[in-house]
């Protein structure tokens, strides 16, 4: 309901009991009191840590196989990244069968929004979301992770790879 001047006043919005506040405060206190006897959902981090399952989307990392990285520096992850967090510079190598490799691969964790698009678009299953959620940086430069920080042995990523195989985002018809 609106007052004639067109403005909504406190009187219009609230009834008498609401306006004197006291019953509302009592209701709030009752809720608080009840919670004291419920089981706690918070954790005593860092002593107690959360162990995510394969479905968790933590910090994106690059998969490292025995003969080197899987990434072929196609730049699709960089293209699809909505936050422009990934920079890839391709290089050419004659040593491996795959002639193209990332000379530089950097993810700016201050930009990354953990959407997992890079993982989804990658044609080589070379970038996956890890379980790492503990990211502490002292300055902006530190938050830009290069290949040395991103490359993770494939053995440590089994949960996620297994999850991806069983839960494909896109089922080809």
């Amino acid at each position, binding site marked *: 309901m609106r007052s004639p001047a067109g403005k909504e006043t406190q009187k219009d919005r609230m009834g008498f009991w609401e306006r004197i506040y006291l019953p509302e405060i009592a209701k709030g206190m009752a809720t608080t009191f009840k919670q004291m006897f419920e089981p706690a959902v918070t954790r005593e981090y860092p002593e107690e840590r959360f162990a995510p399952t394969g479905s968790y989307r933590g910090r994106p990392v690059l998969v490292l196989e025995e003969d080197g990285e899987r990434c*072929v*520096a*196609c*730049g*699709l992850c*960089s*293209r699809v990244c909505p936050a*422009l967090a990934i*920079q890839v510079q*391709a*290089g*050419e190598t004659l040593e491996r069968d*795959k*002639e*193209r490799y990332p000379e530089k691969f*950097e993810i*700016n964790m201050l*930009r990354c929004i953990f959407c997992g698009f890079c993982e989804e678009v990658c*044609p*080589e299953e070379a970038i996956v979301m890890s379980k790492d959620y503990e990211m502490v940086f002292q300055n*902006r430069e530190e938050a*830009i992770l290069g290949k040395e920080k991103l490359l993770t042995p494939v053995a440590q990523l089994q949960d996620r790879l297994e999850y991806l195989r069983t839960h494909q985002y896109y089922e080809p018809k």
Partner: protein
Amino acid sequence: MPQMIIDNKTIEFKSGQTIIQAALENGFDVPHFCWHPGLSVAGNCRMCLCDVGMPRMNPDKTPALDEQGKQIYNFLPKLQIACATPAADGMFVRLNDKKVESAQESVMEFLLINHPLDCPICDEAGQCKLQEYGYKHSKGESRFIETKNHKDKRRPLGPNVLFDGERCISCSRCIRYANEEAQQPVLTFVNRGDHNTIETFPGQEFDSPYSMNVIEICPVGALTSQDFRFKARVWDMSFNETICTGCARGCNINAGVRDNEILRLEPRVNMEVNQYWMCDHGRLNQYKFVNTNRVQQAMIRENGTLLDADWSVAYTRSAEILKHYQAHEIMFFGSARATNEDNFALVELARHIGSPNIDFVRYHDEAFGDAKLRHSDRTPNAKGAETLGVKPGNGGVSADSFVHAVQAGKIKAVVIIEDDIAGLSSAHAQALASLECVIVQASNMTATAQAAHVLLASATYAELEGTYTNFQERVQHVEPAVVSKENASRMGLKMSRLDKFGAENDRWTNGEKRDCRMHWRNLTGIANALGAGWSYKKSADVFSALADKYEVFSGMDYALLDERRGILFGKAHEEYVPVFEYSSHDLKPQS
């Protein structure tokens, strides 16, 4: 003009044209791989199949009509290739119907049987005709489960071009190009069926000065540039229109820019200048000096060393030094590498000061010129400099007599734009070193720049706006391709995706934005410090002043130059008929 009907639309065509030419010129999209307007017709890819009908005639030679009074057409039993079938008066062509679509689908499926689909590592991806048609004209599925053929993936055809046999779709564009345009018939098909591939004849390589044009005309990623390979994905670059300054031809080109650095150059169609091509020399060399060894800002020599200075201080200082000398003691070097605007401003400055000593250096190299594109004049604007009067006035010192005049003590100060005068000979270097006043506007740290007393960083062709006049007397307009502090405000939309959206603290967008200025702006600064009162604010102001003054430029302005892709001297008032410009394949979707 004869008429035909394509997909129920009546169009006019020039007699002698094929269906594909008539259709493309009228805005229809005809999928094709092997046809290229600059090459002979091969008709081997079968992608351009279309349904062709001719009007049915009654025995008495009158048109046969149906009950509704509409013309009946006799369609040919088989689909025809649009690239080799001449258009005929009254013809009816279907480019889009079930029959044509299913033919296109089959051709695509056939081409993809052995195609490696390594788009993720293929430099062509993003502007590949096979990819594009894969989306538009194919089911996106293959019935082939057999293992694909394997072929050489990295075979050099010559010093600059690499061949990937697996990606080749055997369209023969490269072979025809080598035979007809590069005039170096060394490429050929070998083997048959799915083992068919391209080779050079034994002991020969494809090293023509125009070899790299095959990289663009190859509809797929089978031919890649040794120089560019893997430098960037095409969608991460912006392709900005510019002009090659490697010789007096002034080929129209696109500069691929990422992180404010030119990564590659490629030809842009201009039927009057370079058609579809450019030379390898231009492609390989004309971007490097933009990226490296640049003069960073205005500098003034104090006690023997060049120190950074403010622009306004540098202008005042230049004017102060110049005032110490009599007009006839000052020499002005214009440049055939600078724009019309720059040379015009220099001529005006010399006139304001009253010096007859103005000239420019010619860079001729007979060995460079040839009958195709390359011209023996290695500068982009000698015609312009000549026309605008960059030549000694009455009793003035010429470029040739410069060293002598310095030795004789006739010349005591010099203003140089663009050119590396000290690099001409040791006598020139010594002459410059002996002078007390050397004002240099240079883009690169040449020997001349290092000899300067006042050094003004200048924009290269990639950062400036202006016009060049090529040897045909065609005036062509260039706009900036990379960002400098001077042009930053107008470059927003022309930057690549990464450059556009990057922030200051992103490492991938910290490409240098140089503090360089166009020569005419620097000259205006100096002239105004001398009290000339010039009011040029942008290149267009200088150009319109120039067009008012010189008859051959009259009627020209930047918009008109862009619309007509360059205008010949004195032809701005003539009627202009637009020409159709074919471009084989571009970045898709176009931004």
